[in-house]
């Protein structure tokens, strides 16, 4: 019923239908439809507390939505984070959730977990298959570290990395699960101007690899330059959806977000 625009060549990767998330009396996300096309960069904006992170949690199965369904490439996603990751949707967290006492490389290797198979016996016996898989895991993880620009920091503990590097490491870890869609929750929070510029380069490069990306952001200039399409959430409801120009010039967005925005955008953790 919501198949609004005729799909041209670009297939829909993610389709979320009438997602509602209620916490007791609070409706954090209210009846939101949302879809992402192949190789698209979609922005998700909205003032603090609008329900953006909650919406991500609904998409990735961290929360079971009160109502609504999520499908990825035509298949329903069960509300279990592990199965969502396996299906091909990976995410990062607003408040970084790396494995602090593991090295950068090991963090990324954990991301490979769901694409590798070695079990108990193979791990103990260590036959050629085990060694090949382990070698591939290391190679793939190193390649991803290089890709996000952390190649030199492979052996550093995640908790010892500077803030911006931790955000990039989280992206590398998420990409290690071979996703088709990457959900980034405020990837530039706490970064300086130069790091932010690098981040947008990185997101473009991710798209070049054939992934679709959804980005939650407060930094308007960043998001308008980056995204093909932007959705604005306010108080849990989808207010506007469209290209940067459309959203930028929408009265309600300016009122609801940009009007009160700058102060919050600066403070965004």
């Amino acid at each position, binding site marked *: 019923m919501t198949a609004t625009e005729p799909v041209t060549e670009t297939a829909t990767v993610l389709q979320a239908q009438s997602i509602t998330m209620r916490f007791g009396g609070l409706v954090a996300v209210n009846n939101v439809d949302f879809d992402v096309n192949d190789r698209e960069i979609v922005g998700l904006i909205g003032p603090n507390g609008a329900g953006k992170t909650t919406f991500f949690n609904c998409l990735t199965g961290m929360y079971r939505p009160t109502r609504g369904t999520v499908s990825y490439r035509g298949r329903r996603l069960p509300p279990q984070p592990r199965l969502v990751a396996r299906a091909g949707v990976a995410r990062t967290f607003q408040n970084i959730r790396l494995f602090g006492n593991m090295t950068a490389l090991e963090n990324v290797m954990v991301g490979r977990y769901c694409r590798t198979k070695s079990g108990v016996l193979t791990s103990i016996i260590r036959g050629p298959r085990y060694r090949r898989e382990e070698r591939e895991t290391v190679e793939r993880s190193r390649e991803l570290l290089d890709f996000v620009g952390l190649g030199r920091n492979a*052996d550093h503990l995640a908790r010892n990395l500077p803030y911006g590097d931790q955000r990039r490491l989280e992206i590398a870890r998420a990409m290690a699960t071979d996703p088709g869609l990457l959900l980034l929750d405020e990837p530039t929070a706490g970064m300086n101007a130069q790091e932010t510029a690098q981040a947008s380069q990185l997101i473009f490069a991710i798209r070049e690899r054939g992934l679709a990306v959804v980005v939650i952001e407060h930094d308007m200039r960043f998001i308008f330059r980056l995204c093909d399409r932007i959705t604005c959430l306010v108080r849990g409801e989808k207010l506007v959806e469209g290209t940067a120009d459309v959203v930028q010039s929408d009265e309600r967005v300016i009122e609801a977000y940009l009007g009160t925005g700058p102060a919050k955008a600066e403070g965004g953790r």
Partner: protein
Amino acid sequence: MSAIDSWLRRTLGRAGWPIALAGAVLMAVGTFLSWTYDPNIVENLTIYLYPAGPQVYTLILALLAVVMLLAVRGPLATRPLGSLLPGGAGAARTAGVFSVLVVWLILVSIAVQLHGFVNIDPGGWVSGVGALALFVGSRALPDSPRPVLDWRLPSAVQIILIAVALLLVLTAAAYALNRSDAWVFIDFLLFLAGVVLMSRNLGILGYLADATARLRRVTLLAAFIVAFLFPFTQNGSDANMSIATQVLIFATTAIGLNIVVGLAGLLDLGYIAFLGSGAYVGAILSASAFTHIHWHPPFLVVVLIGACVAACFGLIIGSPTLRVSGDYLAIVTLAFGEIFRLTMNNLDGSNGPDLTNGPNGIPAIPDLRIGGFDFGEPHTVLGIELGRFANYYFLLLVVIAFVVLAFARMNDSRIGRGWVAIREDERAAEAMGVNTFSLKLLAFAGGAFLAGLAGTIKAHHDVSVTPDQYQFLESAFLLSAVVLGGMGTVGGVLLGAVILKLLPEKLRFFSDYRLLLFGLLLVVMMRFRPEGMLASRRRQLELHEEDEELAEELEGQVADVEVAPR
């Protein structure tokens, strides 16, 4: 301590050093004199010019202290000694502390056993006063940072060093086991602790630790060779071999528990029940006249059945509880331990099937027979007689080698990384596609499997199986061994198992205070070194989440060698 130190430093000033030196010399002189008149206590310290037992420990400590002191000041300090022993001052202080402990423990024991300090001969007083002087004087020495030795030795030499260290451990263990006097036994342990801590002050321990980490395989192999040689040092005596096999059973089980606790981070308070399951399977399927099942498959089959039964129990307990948060698991496993014991107590035919003979248990389990080899028979190898316990000892050594291999390889694999990720942030691990539930279940059931395996051997070793061998206290001891030794390391748990099993055997007269002592020990450890004696680097980091310096320091040492080839 540091307040006293600085006060002493101010009061004594440069007089501290000569006082300490004089004290060390006095200590050494005292060991050549008689300490008491009664030759029947503390290994006969009555003979002049011939130091015995505790006097030898005292003499060694005194001589080491002299060397350390000479490295701090005096004519030799600048060139040969000072540069060789940069941590001399710290080591001298340690020597001071442990000299007081080692000497005065014996003096007190003489006073206790012969009723009064009057029974101490002049030699004892000379060494006692010397030890005190060494202690006070060494406190006033200037601080020296613990040095980091960067000897670049060829790896062959490093291997020899490791082998020598392990042989020293073996000799010390064999020597300690042969102490029949409990006071002397404790005194020797104190002496050992002193020497080990001194080598730490000098940076030697740190160097050895690094070398063993670099040459992990060689170290492991050497450790097994040394352990293999141990029975040959016992001249066919069963007393010590019996203790040694018990230590091995305990250690095997504790390593299994360490997979659950140390690697997967799950708290299991009923682990002994899995050992019990294996033991009961072993007993019931044995040829004992007291079992009611008359099927006696070969032992290898029994081992597999015992391990699988335990693993099944693990699955049954684990699958509902591991889905919810950690605290429930502790409660459920605690309850399972009790249920197991009570069930074994009651399966005596009056209610339900007669399987276990109830509280009487299953006695008269015959010795193992694998192939044509009878474990009950003594064997003579190279002219050295190896008794029944030595046979079990070798079998257990094989089992423990397997368990250690499984532990180490699981730890350093995809599965091990999954466990670490779960310990770090379970929700994030789940979001990255890690199947946290089945990984936890795997650890839980895998640990149970290994315990069940050990249990089947334990049944034959113990000759009888009764429910009260598998009570909660034993689970608590296993857990203490893991926590005390070091969560997530093999060496630590081995050390913990040796301490927790050996001490009670040697300190039987202490048994009333045993629990109190362990309780205190655990409290002290939790306060000062929560990661255990031989800590896993990662665990150390986890337990010091705030400590940025430590994080920098350990950075290069966390990843397993094979994971991060440069």
